[in-house]
């Protein structure tokens, strides 16, 4: 059997049969989806291959034997043309017994949707902490998306401008720079905000300058080479938004260059979405900057998040057993989501169904 033939044959099998086949062959096979399972099975060594093929044939015979006349069983499963002559197992023999509907879970899952009461703005403790630390040293903030990192940037900018320092705000994308330019101009007044691009400088003498990280890197190179362009001597604060870009294969190096050449009198504020090792970034800054870097890191979402599964039929169920998203990997899926997804894979991955 060629690999293609085997792959096709495997794709025709119900997931349950693939799991039986994978038992003892594939580590943690029960965690894999149908596609993964097939991929993994196909990766076996040539020695294991013949065993796999014969076991597969045996499973097919064993499970469909009761439904098929003996002479059909003798036929090869795959004909020369590559089309299957073997009729797939009837979906009538379900993979798992269908669990009873659990609308109670769904109600709990959808409970509490709505708009919160308007509350006066009170900064979070971590926001205060970041601002306090920023008065004396560099700060790395690694908190979930939508937590309010912009507030820290804005407040810190306000304080720096009051102290008559220049502030540079960098983002990885021109589009984002633009959005922030509009937002900050509205907030601080148009005369207080400038934007620098490769060919244009709007209001370059303003105390708050917005640019992409590449432009700042170039400014720093020019300054190091002796040409002063923007007033870097009054630079008090450099904000690098979305600084997880430091791991970008093409552009990441620009973040490193910028940080390495950032004037020592300016403080750095690195804002990033959650990354696995913000402590490393902080330790690195501590090792090259005049003052020890302060790290702010937490995983609490300001708005709780829940996960659901929407079946193509339009049926919605919770994705996990718990209402919120569990923090442990390999958390159990909601039985209904599991059943519906298995059903989906059955239907779509069988050849001829699409």
């Amino acid at each position: 059997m060629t690999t293609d033939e085997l792959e096709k044959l495997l794709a025709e099998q119900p997931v349950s049969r693939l799991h039986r086949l994978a038992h003892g062959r594939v580590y943690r096979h029960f965690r894999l989806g149908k596609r993964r399972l097939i991929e993994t099975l196909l990766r076996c060594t040539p020695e294991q291959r013949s065993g796999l093929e014969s076991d597969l044939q045996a499973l097919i015979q064993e499970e469909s034997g009761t439904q098929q006349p003996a002479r059909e069983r003798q036929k090869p499963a795959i004909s020369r043309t590559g089309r299957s002559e073997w009729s797939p197992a009837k979906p009538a023999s379900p993979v798992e017994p269908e669990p009873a509907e659990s609308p109670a879970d769904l109600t709990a899952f959808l409970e509490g949707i709505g708009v919160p009461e308007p509350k006066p703005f009170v900064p979070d403790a971590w926001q205060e902490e970041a601002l306090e630390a920023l008065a004396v040293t560099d700060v790395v903030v690694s908190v979930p998306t939508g937590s309010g990192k912009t507030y820290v940037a804005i407040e810190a900018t306000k304080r720096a401008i009051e102290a008559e320092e220049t502030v540079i705000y960098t983002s990885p994308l021109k589009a984002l720079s633009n959005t922030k330019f509009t937002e900050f101009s509205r907030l601080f007044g148009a005369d207080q905000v400038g934007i620098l691009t490769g060919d244009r400088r709007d209001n370059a003498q303003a105390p708050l300058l917005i640019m992409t990280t590449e432009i700042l890197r170039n400014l720093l190179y020019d300054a190091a080479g002796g040409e002063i362009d923007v007033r870097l001597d009054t630079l008090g604060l450099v904000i690098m938004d979305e600084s997880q870009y430091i791991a970008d294969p093409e552009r990441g190096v620009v973040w490193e260059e910028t940080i390495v050449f950032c004037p020592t009198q300016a403080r750095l504020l690195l804002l990033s979405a959650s990354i696995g090792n913000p402590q490393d970034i902080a330790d690195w800054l501590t090792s090259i900057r005049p003052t020890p870097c302060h790290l702010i890191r937490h995983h609490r979402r300001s708005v709780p998040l829940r996960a659901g599964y929407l079946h193509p039929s339009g049926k919605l169920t919770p994705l996990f057993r718990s209402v919120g998203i569990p923090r442990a990997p390999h958390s159990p899926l909601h039985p209904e989501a599991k059943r519906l997804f298995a059903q989906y894979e059955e239907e779509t991955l069988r050849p001829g169904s699409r």
Partner: protein
Amino acid sequence: MPPSIHPVDLIGALRHKHLTPAIVFLTSRRACDDAMQAFQRSQTNLPPARQQAIASVLGQLVEQYPSIAEHPLLPVVQRVGVAAHHAGHLPSWKIAIEELMRQGCLDAVFATTTLAAGVDFPARTVVVTQSSVRKTRDFTDLTIGEIQQLAGRAGRRGKDLVGFAVVTPSPYIDLGVITKGLTGQPEPIDSQFVISYPMVLNLLKAHPLDQIQAILARSFAQFQLNRRAEQLECKLDQLHVQMEPYGPRVCTDWITQWQVFDHARKQKASRVHTRQAGGTRLAGPGRREPPELAARLHFLTPGRVIGLSKGRGVVLRQYRSKGQRSPTVTVLRPGGAVTECPAASVTQIFDRIFEVEETPAYPWCTGQSLDSLTHQVSELPVRMPVLPILVQEEPEESEIVQTLTDEFPCPTCPSRPACQKDHAAALRLRQEVHRNQKTIQALHTGLWHRFQKRAEVLQQRGYLTPTCRLTDVGEWARLIRIDHSLLITELIRADAFSGAEPQILAAIMASIAHDDDRPGAFPRMSQGLASLLGQVRQLAESLAPDEDPPLLRADVAALTERWIGDPTLTWIGLCRVTTMAEGDIYRLLARTLEYLSQVYQLRETHPGLADTASKAIKVLRRGVLEELP
């Protein structure tokens, strides 16, 4: 792949459960556009008041971004309250959609995941329909960080009490990847430091050569390399402790002594043996590998993570194949397959070793090890640091043998039994010590070596003096700080642009700048541009050993030539001559603008060229290209 649920039904289901506004992440722009078409045909209209709200927000934006007013999708968006947001759109349109979303005017936005990091608007619900994303050529699984970045857009602070991440299947979705992404910890990030020619020139402009190593040492790259070196140093200390019983004996370096003696003994035996076999010289046990391969063999030890032409794996053992006696490794692949590969086929050796409890028979380690390795190898991060391997020239083996064969004290030495017994263990330890020392050294000096390599090229080409100061050429070349800088500066030095019109200069810059390989249609280009592009291609090819050549696509050059060459051409007219999406044309021209403004930086040394660049910039910046700074 589109999701299996029809987009109109999807949004209907979400609306029904009060889960809007939602961001629906789809695999491709195509899928987003198809979803919009489905809505265009549908009759699910918004109530008039909400249509009015959208119109008024857009009305305010039109002042700043006039191109919005004529956008073909505007009527649908207003009628159904649903929009698409992807890189094929103009930035101004995307800004408009984002603003509508921020103001809560839309029920849903269909977006591509590629843009997730730049999408700066939240929603109540995020719908995920895929578990992998197209990166360069292949589909790669989304990382935990990426999934959390997507899902994290759900739940607007101050506007929602709770947010929802809803998974809906599309063909080839892998639920395992998504649940792991939702529940797991984001991956640690690794430095992606590369040393480019402009970096070398700019560093040497500001600092003398003897300070450079110290500056490179301040990079995050070096910080992470040092961390790894520290770990290896700990291991080295342990190895030294283990080496203690094998200190000096009758001879100080008894390990080498015994090794050579033993080798000579065997060589002799085999020589006698071959002679007996009929005098033919066999490529027998004495055969040597090329030094690159020999240097690698030290690293191909159990537990080492390696890259092969297809995928990666962990080494379980190294041995010599039966017939050829060529070095071979047994490798555990993700998914649990155990395969045999020639050591020569190993493409990368990663700086990562897993614990392995070795056993003498298949599968060469304990079942427990196999299980945990299988697990670890399938969870490897996408990028891992690669070990630089230093190749060492070794003296010809036969020489050693000849000079030493008959001069060993070993046969009669009192320490012989002890040496014979301990030799294998001591040698293994010592090799491991050497390997570790080599790796540590490579970790400390790797960046500096890479810098030196770049500097050498710049010296050969006349940008740097032999003492690594900037030459006159280097002085201006350092101002070109973009990709393919070497090609651009070499073109300028070859006077390729002398007398070129603005549209020709811009067209060439466009073909150098554009790095997207989505196919486009081919408008006609002028004779002059065609012949210059040919020259550029030749030069790029000749530079290939030192700098990867850009795509140099003719169609993007021709398109740019049109735009600059004919100032009366409208944006819509330009879009009509190509199959490229609006957003891609915009990005092409915006990047061209960036490249041209770098050329304009050379106004002191190359006034003529800078003048041409500035003319091109002026014409280029019109219509939609004027809307954003």
